[in-house]
């Protein structure tokens, strides 16, 4: 990719991936090194080892470092102050290069008016009207902390219900875990 850019010499290169030769980098995925660190915290030794030797993770963290400490970088677009502070403290990128732009949400689509369908949706899912319903929307349950949430559901007074929306490759494991968490003996 970079040699193509060097050949065509565009005026400005904005990348959303960790590309070492771009001018503007949008850190939409955050800091990969921080994500790895968070994953390592409670992982088993074998998993930690797997993360440490994984060529993919090594490659991505190396590229991230090269990109953020490289000379060609003109600006980094962060989508939260958390990411901005992480990039600043971890890679020493000066404030002037860091810009914070939040994502937008269409407040006409997502509005309290959605509660009009509340009863219908609950009936479809077989959830009692007076139950307290917690919702998690997100794909990749490990990252989203679904396991923690399943454990925490035990500490919530009934009638409570949890809806998890999103894709997960190891769905069966989570369904089993939910069944275990829901059983009174667990």
């Amino acid at each position, binding site marked *: 990719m970079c040699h193509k850019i060097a050949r065509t010499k565009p005026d400005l290169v904005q990348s959303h991936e960790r590309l070492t030769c771009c001018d503007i980098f949008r850190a939409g995925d955050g800091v990969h090194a921080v994500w790895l660190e968070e994953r390592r915290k409670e992982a088993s030794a074998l998993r930690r080892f797997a993360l440490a030797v994984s060529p993919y993770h090594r490659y991505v963290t190396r590229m991230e470092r090269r990109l953020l400490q490289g000379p060609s970088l003109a600006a980094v677009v962060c989508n939260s102050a958390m990411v901005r502070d992480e990039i600043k403290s971890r890679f020493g990128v000066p404030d002037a290069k860091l810009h914070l732009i939040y994502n937008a949400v269409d407040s006409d689509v997502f509005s309290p008016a959605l509660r009009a369908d509340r009863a219908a949706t609950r009936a479809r*899912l077989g959830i009692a009207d007076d139950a307290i319903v917690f919702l998690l929307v997100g794909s990749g349950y490990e*990252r989203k902390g679904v396991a923690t949430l399943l454990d925490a559901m035990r500490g919530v007074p009934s009638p409570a219900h949890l809806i998890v929306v999103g894709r997960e490759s190891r769905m069966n494991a989570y369904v089993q875990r939910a069944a275990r968490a829901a059983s009174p003996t667990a």
Partner: protein
Amino acid sequence: MTFAGPQKDPKPYYGAADAFVLPTLYDPLPNAAMEAMACGMPIVTSSKSGAAELVQGADAGFVCASRDVATLAAHMRGALGRRTPRAVGRQCAERRVAFHAAGDDAATGAPVQGVARGQRRAPPWEQGAHRHATRRRNERHDNGASARTGRRCRSPLTRCYNLRFVFPPPRRAFISPRETADRPAHDGLSPLPTPAALRQALLVAFALAVVGMVVVAAGDLIMAMLVIPIVQTFQTNDPARAQWLPFAVIGVFLFRGIGSFVSEYGMAYTGHRVVFDLRRELTDKLLKLPTPYYDVTPSGVVHRSSRSTRTSLPKRHRARLRRQSGARSRSRPASAG
């Protein structure tokens, strides 16, 4: 609990729910949380979530550490508070979250309030995942082991191995894995990992050994296949091939060598560990046999093991002792238990 799976249109779910929870390990800016905020739902998220700063800025929910189960549950209760779901719905209708304003607040660098609130580490009994509890327990013993042996081991295999040689606490001559399983998990006396942890270490070693064998087999096969280009190179005198062939041969040998190391090490580990466990159980048993047993059995005779030995031996031996002291006959140890 409902696992709805991937949905093209998640909007009805936002409508049906009372609160949005996302205890993410790391998420720069979860759009789902922002959508939920736009729907006026209270949010509970983690401090490693980009939504945390928005939630704090707009006072739209709670923030806790990502793996803190107890605090998360408390915040989930708090998110609804004393309000009934219906009241929450009414409030949602009244309040729409202006998170751009919230974002500006956060952008000025105001510290995110309340993040530290969630930092308390939950005690083991509040951590639901058993595996974590086990690991922590092992780690505690691991620390103890390293304090005695003066070195720290990282891998699960070495950890188990070292633990075997930690001196057990006083008054207890020996602790078998079986006993460790029966004892409550938190008594902290046992220097041994749980049987589950042991089995896991064994399984890992065995699995690695199998992988190593596959690697060796593959290496042999590739070596045989390499003979074809080698012969062809000599026939045609192709310089391009001659350049990479030596590297290929060396590479295959390295690959195969690593495989054979892993397989032999893994198999040896598994085999020795199994024999070691058996021997230890035997020793354990012999040490605990009641004294009358040695009155009637020469100590050099290894007794044919019996499941009932521990519970029923004293009584039966009393009878046998009486009989033998009368008859003065030589005992037949094979049938004693």
